[in-house]
């Protein structure tokens, strides 16, 4: 029997395999441009969308991807009270394990728990985000978006700005971008960085102005003041001064550079209202909507990979 193809992170994928996935995503993106946006690639397969943590965007994106591939998709409501969290989650997994299915997409709020599930079910697991750990499909869709905008990935300068400490998107992207030969700088204040930053093998800056004029890709992370577990960052005013993308900074960016964000954007926090307002008119530079549409194609490619 072949080893089941879990996608818990992109660590196991080599550069060539990633490149192949990008090319495959192209063909799925083509399908999405057709009138009939559907292929029979996964007809007869049953996929379960299991979200222990609330997220409409990612859930919908996976659902579209599965349906475009003609798979049957079951959304499983897995909300559980914090009181019986661990037990009810194990029960849910056991229930789902006993149902007929071919693949399970899981999101969970705690780092690493999906790795545990993967060990206890027979079908492939796709990680749709686990705690502060990994978000591999987001990383690949971000890479794909960059890949479609530049001739080569090697040497591209990217700055990832904001709350690195609490971001699974940052963890997955830093690893993937580095693997693909990009020149990554992380921009964050001390309290929004892991203390042992050296492990990430990136450059480091404290403030967005150090990098803004020199980069090809500006990747802004969500900053959720209210969700910081340890509230050490002083204020929004301070954040705006050192880390936000405002119009002046936007205008100082290089000619062919792009702006990305995993969404949803907190207007006035990571990105100012003025910049958000030109998002519609300037789609060449601000790629936030493109990321969302690329997400479906990338997830089609990954689901197809895991089930073929």
């Amino acid at each position, binding site marked *: 029997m072949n080893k089941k193809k879990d996608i818990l992170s992109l660590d196991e994928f080599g550069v060539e395999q990633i490149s192949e996935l990008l090319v495959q995503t192209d063909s799925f993106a083509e399908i999405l441009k057709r009138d009939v946006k559907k292929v029979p690639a996964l007809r007869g397969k049953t996929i379960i969308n299991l979200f222990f943590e609330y997220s409409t965007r990612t859930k919908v994106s996976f659902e579209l991807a599965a349906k475009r591939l003609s798979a049957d998709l079951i959304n499983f409501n897995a909300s559980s009270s914090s009181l019986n969290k661990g037990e009810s989650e194990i029960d849910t997994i056991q229930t789902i394990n006993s149902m007929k299915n071919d693949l399970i997409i899981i999101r*969970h709020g705690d*780092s*690493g728990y999906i*790795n545990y599930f993967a060990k206890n079910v027979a079908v492939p697991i796709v990680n749709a985000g*686990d705690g*502060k*750990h990994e978000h591999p499909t987001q990383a690949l869709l971000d890479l794909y978006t960059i890949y479609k905008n530049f001739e080569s990935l090697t040497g591209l300068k990217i700055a990832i700005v904001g709350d690195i400490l609490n971001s699974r998107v940052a*963890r997955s992207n830093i690893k993937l971008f580095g693997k693909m030969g990009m020149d990554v700088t992380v921009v964050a204040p001390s309290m929004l960085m892991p203390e*042992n930053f050296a492990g990430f093998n990136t450059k480091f800056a404290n403030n967005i102005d150090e990098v803004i004029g020199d980069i090809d890709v500006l990747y802004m992370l969500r900053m959720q003041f209210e969700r910081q577990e340890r509230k050490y960052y002083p204020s929004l005013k301070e954040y705006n001064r050192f880390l936000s993308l405002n119009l002046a900074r936007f205008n100082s960016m290089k000619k062919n550079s792009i702006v990305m964000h995993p969404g949803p954007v907190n207007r006035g926090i990571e990105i100012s209202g003025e910049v958000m307002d030109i998002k519609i008119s300037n789609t060449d530079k601000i790629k936030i909507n493109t990321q969302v549409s690329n997400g479906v194609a990338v997830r089609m490619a990954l689901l197809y990979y895991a089930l073929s």
Partner: protein
Amino acid sequence: MNFGNLKSKSKENILIRNGCIINPKAQEKYKADILVLDGIIKEIKKNITCESADNIQEINAEGLYVCPGFVDMHVHLREPGNEEEEDIESGAKSALRGGITSMACMPNTLPVIDSCYLVEYIKMKAREIDYNVYPVAAITKSLKGEELSEIGLLVNSGAVAFSDDGKGVQNSRLMYEAMRYGKQFDALFILHEEDDNFSNGGIVNEGYYSAILGLEGISNLSEDLMVQRDIMLSKISGARIHITHVSSARSVELIYGAKADGVNITCDTACEYLFFNDSILTNYDTNFKIKPPIRSESDRLAIVEGLRNGTIDAIASDHAPHLLLEKNKSFKEASFGSVGLETLFKASLTKLFYEENLSLEKIVALISLNPAKILNIEGGELKTGSIANISVVDIESENIYSKDSIISKSKNSSFIGQKLNGEIMYTIVNGKSGFSNS
């Protein structure tokens, strides 16, 4: 494999032949027989002949090592309150399986051991099974860190030491008053060093692995700051302090300095800290979720060095039983702690003897004589006239440690799947066969 009848009061006659005796006090080993009559060590010499008593049980210890019964100074027995995880009797069995004949149990039970009647309850339960359990009482009432327990009365009722294990006393003034008052009774303080401001919300060591795994970190500062504080408080108050489960390099360094400075301080580490580093977290196995967290390799090396040069006086298990239910959760939600009575000797032997070349005499001192001296209790020596507490061990065997072999009610061991050297062959407790591995 069988356990003796713990509840029987009758002492036994045992002759251990041809073993190699380990004497941790003199740091020597030599071949000899040991004769136990009516539970008391009568003779230790070569070729003992014994016609006087019949019904002598003979143990052939050829190729085995005969050690003073091991002493574990940091154990959670969960009784009263959480007997489904462990109770005093099941804990004693687990301990006998590990060659341990005496243990000090921590007060974070339900209710907390902060009153004399609870100290007496533990002692009574231990007497019923003729096992040596030494209750440690809480420094503060209900472990709340707000008011001191009745330290004087608790000393009188037989509390062997005082600890707010599991939490640590956050209030420096209260800790200082506890030490000044405890000094009047020559009380020993066993200190769990944790600054909550650095550890709240944290689940693993703050370092490279917490960063890449997305798990909240607990900085070494959480421990180091409190060790430094308590060294200063002890120096000023003169109280006897014992830092338990030392896990960080800087704490070892601070304690080394304090000893040189004449502070009345000793310390222990637990097996996990000398055996593992935080790279084992990558599979998110919740049996590795313990407090203090398993630290980096440089910390582990400092712990080993501290054991070698005598800065660290003892190794304890910090046996912390939890039901599967509490561990089959995400890393964030799972409980802290791992069981350890049954692996105290094996894990120490595997790392320290086979990898780090510490002598067997030294290792045995770390898990018998030294903790007995710190607690000021019987044990840690084999001498004629004293009650027989003896562990007979094989150091040659090598096995993959399995969950199925665990005797404790709880199976949350960090050593499951590890290759461990050594095996406990016989444990004699209070002059009776407690455990035999045949």
